[in-house]
């Protein structure tokens, strides 16, 4: 029963916190050429997909749809961009996970891959609807790479706190 409530609560908290995430970074970073997007919500979803979801459950994808939509409403105003990108990539990550073991290195690898695909997908959609006209080579260097690194850092930082409860809840799932 508590499982049903705890993930939405955590995801909601992470979504709210990403609104103030940029305040925590030094302003020189923001004003400079680099763009860093905190995909913390996505990192949490990856944890759920790898350590909680079984082969026959789709919790992570479901949460990606719900909280992606909330994220769109609150932070971008363009509905569907984050919802679609997050849900699609979580679905792909979920598929890849079946072939691999759920350990730290697999998590790191899948996350780097997932964040990259998700951010490229967001870039593609924003380019198509004309919200950005950043050339692709500038995007890759100034936004994609810093974003991946920053989010991997977040992933590693929360790993010690989240891995034990995550594994425990995962085994309890019936």
């Amino acid at each position, binding site marked *: 029963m508590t499982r049903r409530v705890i993930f939405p609560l955590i995801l*909601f*908290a992470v*979504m*709210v*916190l*990403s*609104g*103030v*995430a*940029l*305040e*925590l970074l030094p*302003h020189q970073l*923001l*004003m400079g*050429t680099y*763009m*860093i*997007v*905190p*995909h913390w919500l996505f990192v949490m979803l990856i944890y759920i997909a790898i350590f909680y979801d079984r082969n026959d459950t789709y919790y992570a994808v479901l949460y990606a749809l719900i909280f992606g939509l*909330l994220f769109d*409403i*609150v*932070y*971008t*105003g*363009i*509905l*569907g*961009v*984050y*919802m*679609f990108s997050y*849900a*699609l990539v979580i679905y792909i990550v979920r598929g890849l996970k079946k072939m691999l073991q759920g350990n730290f290195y697999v998590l790191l690898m899948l996350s780097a891959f997932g964040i990259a695909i998700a951010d490229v997908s*967001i870039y593609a*959609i*924003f380019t198509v*609807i004309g*919200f*950005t006209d*950043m050339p692709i080579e500038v995007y890759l260097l100034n936004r994609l790479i810093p974003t991946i690194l920053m989010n991997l850092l977040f992933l590693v930082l929360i790993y010690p706190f989240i891995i034990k409860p995550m594994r425990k809840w995962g085994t309890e799932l019936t």
Partner: protein
Amino acid sequence: MNFFRSKKLFVILIGFIVLVVLIGYSLNSRGHLNFAEKIVSDSVGWVQNIAQAPVTFVTDIVSNVSDFKTTYEENQVLREQLSQQKSMVYDLQKLEDENEELRSIIDMTETARDYEPIYATVIARSPEQWVDQVTINRGENDGIQENMVVRTAEGMIGKVLHTSKGTSTVQLLTGFDEFNRVSATVLREDDKDIFGMIEGFDEETEMLLFRIIEESDADIEEGDTVYSSELGGEFPAGITIGEVKEVVADQYGLTRIAMIEPAADLFDIRNVIVVNRSIDQPEDEEEGDEES
């Protein structure tokens, strides 16, 4: 036909169609949030209000420490400036009195310069930096309407994009484009003001683009201050936007564009003032008369 039988592909295709529909919907109905969006914005805004307090506390401590280092130097500079300003205060007072007197003679009480401030605090900044939005903790209930100008003590930072009951979203100047323009002016003596539009932000140089529409004989120069102008019909006049850094020809060579350095720090925004223009816009003139 195998293609359509595959369930996974089918779901992804449906998802793609939903995406296109949603994006189309949100691009078309901009300006107004629908009912569900307002509820979500309000409830998330309520939590953000709580979450923002401890984060501000921590970042304030950090910035306070770094402020200490520069305090002495700043103090010196400010003292010098203060002594210069003392004489200006006297002049200003004199001019203001005179202005009021003259205005009462011609029976004109409100100008496009007057505004009612609504004070607000930034509770979140969009993590997606292409969107350039911040959320503030005042909304329709506090009298905020779409398209109001938002400023800090230093100068203009943007305008209200949409509102819900308790929060509103502010589009920053950095996110302005051809569809979100601000009419602006550079003051010159004898009615020779230079008029134009702020119509974009250059990411590379971090400067606002000020397209000069009507250029008087007086040429625009580096160091000129650009103010908002009442001619756009939405904004009050006289809010500082920024300082001219460079003037270049536009890509067709027909008009000239001035690069403006924003007066306000657009990356470190905490407390803002939403500007409610007191003078009524022509279409609600009758309504305004009843109120006053």
